[in-house]
């Protein structure tokens, strides 16, 4: 079937389609104007030509408070505006005002029409809509009034995101929605997307990323969400319970994040310009020993170990360098953002165009992120029954990367492209001896071999340890991302209340990565390389490109009708197709073949290696949904989605996801009338739904043969071997989630509260199940097994206070989640996982236990005397004086593996957030607090700092190690060179820290210039503001960032820190003007 329909076989066939599409893209920005001007003569013919008149005024609510965002449009005309934050507006009426009628409209209020007459000032008070259902939220394939929702959806206004100086919308989401945990695992890495988890970890076999849907378009890759300019976002809705997410079926198991971008509201073109600029710096510096303390420590360790140290450390210590490596690698760095947008149109044609430029230099030298975005949204009524809309959003981003996470000689996998190991400069800067020069006299980067340290028999010379500034200065790793998102729809209303909509969209994505390690960069493969001694054979150059196309065709039919004025019914039918296809190609020079770095790309090698990889998947979906309510009082909703995906085995390719929810607005009952003045809204809701997870990559159900070569007679021979274990039954992971919710509003919405309890069971987990080793050609295979449970509670509260002229809004949320392993398909535990190198078997997933437990030894003291050695149990291989005493947990008289206990938990007990928004006259103040409680962090940064005379160390260890010359002194750490359990070889409770924190995430102070002043300079609005991001963090965690996660979003190894990028503090000044 497919073969016959392939168009590429026909030369020149079907070229009109792309041409049309591109014509549409190009013409779109122009369309608003010609159409609008075509309508103008009609208006003109009805009125006598007259001079334009400026009308101004203020729109207020019934309490007299200014109403922002009210649409003010000239009836039958093209002119329009919206009220500013104080409710003020001004509007020029082009042809005189006598007959002019202004329409004031805002969601939740009854629209008012006013004849202008002779007035130039029109103040309006809007009445709340008696049918007012308040805020509208975006649900999948539609919108719904918040009050008639029967599911758990959190809404975040775009404004809260845009006010934060961060590079990705994901980061800005932190603390703003209950049940949504945002963890910037790699700290302040510019342009790096955080891990976002909704209601815990839902899977052990694959990732727990939510599905992102942008303007109705489900993104193939979570990373694309972070290419959206936060300022373009109108709102973000997070669908948390399965009942709300189930309409997205097979990909909604970890929740759905719906992003709605700003669309034109019509009226006269409004321009808005906003810009901020500021400086960032690391929020913290780690206290390490300076040169003199370092020498003291070195001498102590040398004495205990009976080694000689370089004599110059006694004779002339001041001649030695005293390098501050942190100062060398970190910097203060600028951040800036510019936005220009125009929005307007007529009643029948509305558009918004926005362009943005964001630029952030990293506080770690050599890192930066630049992003250029353009977005064009157009909505048009082609006829009373036909509507269309187009969104086009090209973007370009460029990120300069440096290895951050990982160990001093070997940054974490994934930090360096092409599987080349490089030092982690952040870890290096801590462990490097201060007595190494930053630069040598000849201008090369200083290395251990340049220092006195390495002179004396090399005992103080770690040969796998390199100048971190050299890495940051010489290593190049740039990722460029070109993306074009385009989406268009046509909506037809053939009969009243029935809307048929077809949407066609596509995303083109090109990711281009370039990496280069020059000949003069010292690393493990070229340990003595520098400019004086380049090692061309170790040059590394690689260029790769991933080209991806994703397209979506979606068709919905929506029927809404109110029967007998009390039965409100909405029916939705959906048919959708989505296909993704990508190609990865790359070239690098074969290792060892470079001879020059006159050319800094793979072409410099005479022997180049190519790479290629393909990805392909398709989803086919049918869905239906019923929303019914009786007078907005009894609410019921049900949805059913059937999905098929190429990702699953032919035997189980289809899956069906049902959901039900119901709500009762108790406050609508007659018996409530007496209470209504106090509790004006009370809703109880319950939902149950099933959703699926398909994040397993493509064709993992199939097995193939892959290359495994050998050589015969000195000649390479090319061979193949089976890889993987086929599973034709592979299918979706299913989440069954039950949610109970309560929503209440008090004192006429002055205070509102929402509470959710949920139970989320992941069934038939997509799991990489281990196979016995005897199978040979596969160690594991993809299958469906087991059960993971997330249970939690979320509370959000909101209050709007008015104290005199001060308007104060507080949003607060707190959520607690616990992930428990119920079943892993037979075994009681999975293979233990290490944390950082040397600390093995730290994490183990066990049935019946919580996810994220850290296992280690408990330190009970130090063997100080020979007597102690008999009094306390020793480590299995024996202990000595000066060793740590480890608690013998099972009391068997010796310390071994079985004495490990839970010494920490990598996932937080609860997270919370609070935002304040205060307005007083022209001054506004915003504050966002973010908190995480009850998570532990394994500080892998300090593993190497213990008792190495050739590494620097921290005050924690300094003068705090057992000294055989002074055995009675109270110290916390064992003797240098300790056997048994010591900080170098096993995790103990001493290396696990409390990672709880409370962070002042954002503080913004703004001033809106008065209208009177603005009129003189022909501006509609102007606001200046100052922002501090990550101003303070209250934490006991002693390293750069308590939000750290070396292993990314791993469900197996949460809460490890080693060389991760520091948290940054940012101060900015900004300006936004409308004209």
């Amino acid at each position: 079937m497919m073969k016959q329909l392939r168009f590429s076989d026909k030369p020149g066939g079907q070229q009109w389609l792309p041409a049309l599409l591109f014509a549409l893209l190009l013409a779109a920005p122009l369309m608003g104007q010609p159409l609008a001007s075509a309508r103008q003569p009609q208006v003109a013919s009805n009125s006598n030509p007259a001079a334009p008149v400026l009308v101004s005024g203020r729109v207020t609510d019934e309490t007299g408070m200014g109403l922002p965002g009210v649409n003010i449009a000239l009836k039958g005309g093209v002119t329009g505006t919206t009220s500013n934050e104080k409710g003020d507006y001004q509007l020029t009426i082009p042809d005189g005002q006598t007959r002019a009628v202004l329409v004031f409209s805002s969601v939740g209020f009854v629209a008012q029409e006013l004849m202008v007459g002779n007035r130039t000032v029109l103040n309006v008070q809007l009445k709340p809509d008696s049918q007012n259902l308040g805020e509208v939220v975006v649900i999948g394939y539609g919108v719904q009034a918040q009050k008639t929702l029967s599911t758990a959806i959190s809404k975040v206004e775009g404004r809260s995101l845009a006010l934060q100086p961060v590079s990705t919308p994901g980061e800005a989401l932190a603390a703003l929605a209950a049940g949504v945990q945002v963890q910037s695992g790699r700290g302040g890495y510019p342009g790096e997307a955080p891990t976002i988890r909704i209601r815990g970890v839902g899977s052990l076999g694959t990732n727990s990323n939510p599905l992102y849907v942008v303007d109705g378009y489900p993104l193939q890759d979570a990373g694309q969400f972070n290419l959206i300019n936060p300022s373009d976002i109108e709102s973000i809705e997070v669908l948390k319970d399965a009942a709300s997410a189930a309409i997205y079926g097979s990909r909604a198991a970890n929740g759905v994040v719906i992003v709605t971008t700003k669309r034109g509201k019509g009226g006269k073109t409004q321009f808005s310009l906003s810009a901020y600029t500021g400086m960032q710096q690391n929020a913290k510096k780690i206290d390490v020993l300076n040169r003199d303390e370092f020498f003291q420590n070195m001498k102590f360790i040398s004495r205990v170990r009976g080694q000689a140290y370089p004599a110059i450390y006694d004779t002339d210590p001041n001649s030695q360098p005293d390098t501050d490596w942190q100062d060398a690698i970190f910097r203060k760095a600028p951040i800036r953002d510019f936005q220009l947008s125009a929005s307007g149109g007529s009643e029948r044609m509305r558009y918004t165009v926005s362009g943005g430029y964001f630029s952030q230099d990293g506080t770690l030298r050599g890192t930066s992120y630049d992003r250029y975005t353009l977005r064009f949204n157009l909505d048009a009524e082609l006829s009373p029954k036909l509507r269309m809309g187009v969104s086009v959003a090209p973007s370009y981003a460029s990120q300069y990367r440096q290895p951050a996470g990982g160990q001093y000689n070997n940054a974490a996998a994934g930090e360096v492209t092409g599987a080349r190991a490089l030092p982690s400069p952040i870890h290096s800067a801590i462990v490097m001896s201060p007595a190494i020069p930053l630069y040598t006299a000849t201008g090369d980067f200083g290395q251990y071999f340049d220092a006195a340290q390495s002179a004396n028999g090399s005992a103080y010379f770690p040969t796998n340890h390199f100048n971190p500034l050299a890495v940051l200065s010489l290593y190049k790793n740039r990722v460029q991302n070109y993306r074009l998102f385009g989406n268009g729809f046509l909506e037809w209303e053939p009969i009243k209340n029935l809307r048929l909509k077809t949407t066609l969209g596509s995303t083109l994505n090109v990711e281009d990565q370039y990496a280069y390690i020059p000949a003069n960069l010292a690393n493990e493969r070229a340990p003595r390389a520098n400019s004086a001694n380049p090692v061309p054979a170790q040059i590394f150059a690689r260029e790769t490109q991933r080209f991806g196309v994703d397209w979506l065709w979606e068709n919905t039919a929506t029927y809404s009708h109110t029967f007998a004025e009390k039965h409100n019914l909405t029916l939705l039918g959906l048919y959708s197709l989505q296909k993704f296809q990508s190609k990865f190609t790359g070239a690098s020079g074969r290792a060892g073949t470079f001879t020059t770095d006159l050319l800094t790309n793979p072409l410099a090698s005479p022997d180049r290696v190519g790479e290629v990889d393909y990805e392909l998947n398709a989803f086919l979906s049918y869905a239906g949904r019923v929303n019914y309510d009786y007078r907005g009082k009894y609410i019921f909703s049900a949805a059913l989605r059937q999905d098929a995906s190429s990702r699953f085995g032919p035997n189980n390719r289809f899956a069906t996801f049902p959901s039900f929810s119901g709500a009762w607005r108790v406050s609508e009952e007659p018996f409530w009338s007496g209470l209504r003045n106090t509790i004006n809204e009370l809703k109880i809701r319950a939902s149950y739904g099933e959703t699926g997870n398909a994040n397993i990559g493509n064709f993992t159900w199939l097995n193939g043969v892959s290359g495994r070569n050998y050589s015969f007679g000195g000649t390479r021979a090319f061979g193949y071997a089976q890889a993987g274990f086929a599973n034709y039954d592979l299918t979706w992971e299913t989440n069954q989630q039950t949610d109970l919710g309560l929503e209440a509003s008090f004192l006429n919405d002055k205070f509102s509260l929402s509470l959710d309890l949920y139970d989320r069971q992941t069934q038939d987990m997509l799991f990489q199940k281990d196979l016995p080793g005897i199978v040979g050609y596969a160690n594991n295979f993809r299958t469906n097994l087991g059960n993971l449970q997330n249970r939690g509670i979320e509370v959000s509260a909101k209050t709007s206070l008015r104290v005199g002229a001060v308007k104060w809004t507080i949003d607060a949320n707190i959520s607690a989640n616990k992930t428990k392993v119920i079943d892993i398909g037979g075994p009681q535990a999975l293979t233990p996982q290490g944390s950082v190198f040397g600390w093995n078997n730290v994490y183990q997933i066990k049935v019946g236990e919580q996810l994220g437990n850290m296992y280690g030894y408990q330190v009970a003291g130090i063997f100080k005397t020979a007597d102690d050695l008999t009094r306390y149990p020793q480590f299995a291989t024996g202990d000595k004086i000066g060793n740590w005493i480890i608690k013998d947990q099972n009391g068997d008289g010796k310390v071994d593996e079985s004495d490990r206990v839970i010494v920490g938990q990598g996932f937080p007990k609860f997270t919370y957030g609070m935002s304040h928004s205060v307005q007083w006259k022209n001054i506004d103040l915003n504050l966002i607090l973010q908190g995480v409680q009850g998570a532990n962090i394994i500080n892998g940064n300090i593993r190497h700092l213990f008792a190495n005379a050739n590494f620097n160390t921290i005050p924690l260890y300094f003068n705090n190690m057992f000294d055989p010359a002074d055995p009675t002194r109270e110290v916390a750490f064992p003797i240098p060179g300790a056997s048994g359990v010591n900080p170098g070889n096993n995790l103990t409770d001493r290396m696990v820290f409390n990672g709880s924190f409370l962070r002042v995430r954002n503080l913004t102070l703004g001033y809106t210039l008065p209208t009177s002043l603005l009129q003189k300079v022909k501006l509609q609005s102007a606001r200046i503001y100052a922002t501090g991001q990550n101003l303070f963090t209250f934490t006991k965690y002693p390293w750069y960032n308590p939000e750290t996660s070396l292993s990314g979003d791993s469900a197996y190894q949460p809460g490890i820190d080693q060389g991760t990028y520091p948290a940054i503090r940012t101060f900015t000044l900004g300006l936004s003007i409308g004209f």
Partner: protein
Amino acid sequence: MKTILHFFRNLLPASLLLLAAGCGTEFVNLTPQDVIPVAGFYKTEADIRAALTGTYGNLRGIYNNFWQFTEMPSDNTRSFGESEVALGEFDRLTWRSTTGGVSTAWTDAYRTIANANVVIERSGAVTMTDALRNQYMGEAKFLRALMYFNLVRLFGDVPLILTEIKTEADAYTFKREATAAVYAQIEKDLLDAEKVLPAKFTGVNIGRATSGAAKSLLGKAYLQQKKWTEAAAKLAEVIAANTYRILPAYTDVFGLGKDNNDEIVFAVQYVGGGFGEGNTFVHNFAPQPSGTSIVAVTANSHNVGTRDLYDAFGPGDIRRDAFMGIFTRNPDVYYWTKKFVYNIAQQNEGENDWPVIRYADVVLMYAEALNNNGKTDAALTQLHLTRKRAGLPELKGLTKADTQLAVELERRLELCFEGHRWHDLIRWGKEVSTMQAFKAKYATIDVLNANISITADRKLFPIPFRETSLNASLVQNPGY
């Protein structure tokens, strides 16, 4: 832009029409572009040859780490620094069922066996000459036998997998088979292999298993079982074939460019040059603090020789300085494995091969078998072949017991670092006494040696924790 247009041209209209035609399910029945499906493979001679090459390909990884199990536990080698953290358990005999390398040894061997089983099982249905089919099956049987020989020595009783495991349920039907049964299978495979394999390969086939390799491995398997008569007879066949010889100088046997010389019976072939198919042991064996003086890349201090080994070379034995180098970094002295190390410029890209069986080994095994058969004088004649090259005088008139001791010492010195020592000690029943003596002698010199833990149970490694936890019917070895 052209590509973009191309995509649109292909995908959009095609999909629209697909839908119009109403073939929904077809839409998700996609064919991957990145998988060669197993179902379509193993159909031609070229496929089988490639599958056999893929089987050999496993040896690279296995013998990159073989010393962990065969040298590190013995008195021959040790580790330093970070290497001590990673490998200390092999060094001090404190390995456990969860120790990383133990699990890898098990799975790597069974992977090779699985790959060999495919060749053995599927060759029959493929059109090719009988000569080629026999050769391929013979090579596969040699590789399978080599893997079972490693497994039975490391783990004792092990499951015998002789066919492809095709379903998950199948994987749980196998139990540990008695050591004797495993050896019986090894002998059967090698007897099959020696019949069909040529004595020698040439050109681009050098490095494949030969009849000499099969016979030598069989001799080694007999010897390890103390089947002295069968061992002597089989090894005599290897010697009589006159395919191999003791080369005059060690520099002809080891080092860069000396691969597949006349002394090599079977070696794992490595090739450098940036293909990811080189060896890792060259830079692993060099002392980490040596900077760029021994290898041009950062070294790892794995499998460094002991003082005890260094001192075991008698006066006049030129092998000491040929096989070991000294690098001093106060207070540590590294007796590094010069035998395998050359000045490599790239990590993991070592060019030199790993000798699995060397003719010197054959000769010394023959000597041991002869002596145990009561032919002590004949044994001493064989022993002199390697001693002579070392610059040592001929031994004459020794008792059987003394000859045994002489063979033991000679094997230790001649074959040091090559992955024989630990199982030799076990064959001689001396692993406990040797390591206890070693610990007693060196514990005061190096504190780490004080942590050596040696019991009779150590002669077998534990069944990896991963395997016993996946399959409870795999009963753990005693002492673990």
